[in-house]
């Protein structure tokens, strides 16, 4: 193998490295932007201005926050399992970046196109649960452990309907490749799977909000009410990585939702990447809007919603999708 093949974009390893670098930059930048958007939306929902003083309209506020977070001392509680304790935030963040690889930003701008992209995302996002357990267990703290147990129960409960709703679309599309699925939909809303199968879209959105621990399902991180939970003991960038992972996960679920239900990069006039980003940001805005609208649910309500409503509904939806696909094919 010579240098030329190594530097060519066609060579998978080079592509992977460049893709990962781009993703790190994308995740970091998006984290900053989303923190700002989140605080601005929160402010305006509550009829106050939100961050205002650092930079025009408080635009530099997230940068200053990040500097503060990085400057903080990293402390591990005594009696904690140091390896597990520090592995947890890394483990929360690393799979999130991998999940970006199969996202269909544009037919020509694909980090790694793969025909099992959907499965890869679902599998790696499952790893996040492991990081929660490690964080809770490694902290040597009762609240941390209880919080981790709570988070795991929530993640497991919502993974089921999420998978079922995704499968309904995959069966309709006859593919697990996010590019294929996006390509099958058209540029206009009535050609999107989200409009053709609104029930799956709805279930997916609810589960996505719950899986990313966003309000009204933010029991894993109710700082003042439930002593936060799995990340109680983390300081500085230890906490910062969990934080960044949450935002990265939000972008991933929004990306998957855009690809599966809103036609991915397809849209009139604008280039594909822009359409994809616009769709992602619309969903992100919606998720943030939800957070500042609804109060947190109780834990039994949370589990009931998943097991008694979403799972059966998703099963029905999947059965219908299978029947329709059977007749169609």
């Amino acid at each position, binding site marked *: 193998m010579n240098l030329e093949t190594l530097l060519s974009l066609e060579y998978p390893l080079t592509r992977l490295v460049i893709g990962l670098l781009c993703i790190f930059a994308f995740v970091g930048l998006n984290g900053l932007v989303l923190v700002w958007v989140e605080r601005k939306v929160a402010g305006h929902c*509550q009829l*106050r201005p939100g961050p205002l003083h650092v930079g025009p309209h408080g635009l530099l506020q997230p940068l200053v926050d990040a500097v503060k977070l990085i400057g903080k001392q990293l402390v591990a509680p005594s009696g904690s399992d140091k390896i597990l304790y520090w592995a947890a935030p890394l483990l929360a963040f690393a799979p999130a970046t991998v999940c970006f690889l199969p996202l269909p930003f544009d037919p020509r701008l694909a980090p790694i196109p793969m025909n099992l992209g959907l499965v890869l995302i679902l599998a790696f996002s499952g790893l996040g649960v492991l990081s929660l357990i490690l964080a809770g267990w490694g902290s040597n703290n009762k609240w941390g452990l209880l919080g981790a147990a709570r988070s795991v129960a929530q993640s497991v409960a919502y993974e089921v309907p999420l998978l079922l709703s995704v499968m309904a679309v995959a069966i309709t599309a006859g593919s697990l490749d996010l590019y294929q699925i996006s390509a099958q939909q058209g540029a206009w809303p009535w050609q999107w799977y989200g409009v053709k199968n609104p029930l799956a879209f709805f279930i997916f959105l609810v589960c996505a909000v719950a899986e990313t621990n966003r309000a009204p399902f933010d029991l894993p991180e109710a700082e003042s009410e439930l002593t936060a939970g799995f990340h109680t003991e983390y300081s500085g960038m230890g906490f910062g990585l969990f934080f960044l992972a949450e935002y990265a996960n939000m972008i991933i679920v929004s990306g998957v939702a855009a690809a599966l239900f809103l036609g991915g990069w397809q849209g009139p006039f604008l280039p594909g990447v822009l359409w994809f980003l616009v769709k992602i940001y619309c969903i992100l805005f919606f998720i943030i809007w939800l957070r500042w609208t609804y109060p947190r649910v109780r834990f039994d309500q949370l589990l009931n919603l998943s097991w008694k*409503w979403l799972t059966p509904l998703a099963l029905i939806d999947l059965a219908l999708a299978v029947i329709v696909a059977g007749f169609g094919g």
Partner: protein
Amino acid sequence: MSVSQLIEEAYTGLKSLVIGLGVTGKALTQPGVTVLYPMEEVARDNLASFRGHVELVGKDEDPAVPKCVACGACVKACPSDCITILCPIPAKEGEAGGEVKMGPAPQKGSKTPGAVYVDFSLCSLCGQCAKTCPVDSLKFSDNPYMVRFDRKEFRIDLLARLKRLAGEGLE
């Protein structure tokens, strides 16, 4: 629970969720209602419901003189012991005029307070004093901007404050 009931419940639940989104969505587009404090201050008429330290209420015919009849009920009612009301002690027969002595209210023969202090550094804003006053002579002030360097400065001379406010015509 029957299936129709379940569906009805889910329907009303979903409807309320959409209404909730509408409420915050509308708020998103409206201008804020807060002020940027050090640069701007809240308009006075917006402070009517603010519970600042207690202050005296002036008489209708003479706002510089408090309604207070120096009964001392508020002093007794205050759980934090922050109100001080002093009354002039009438000079006894045969005593020289000289300086007027002050004693804690109530004093025989004195129907007006000689001095009223409230120590805001002790006050818990419970409102017991205002509730107890038989002539409604105490109320919460609308004074949110209180910054001092010494806690002794939070001992506020209410009579002087009332005179000042009446002089400024603010009541």
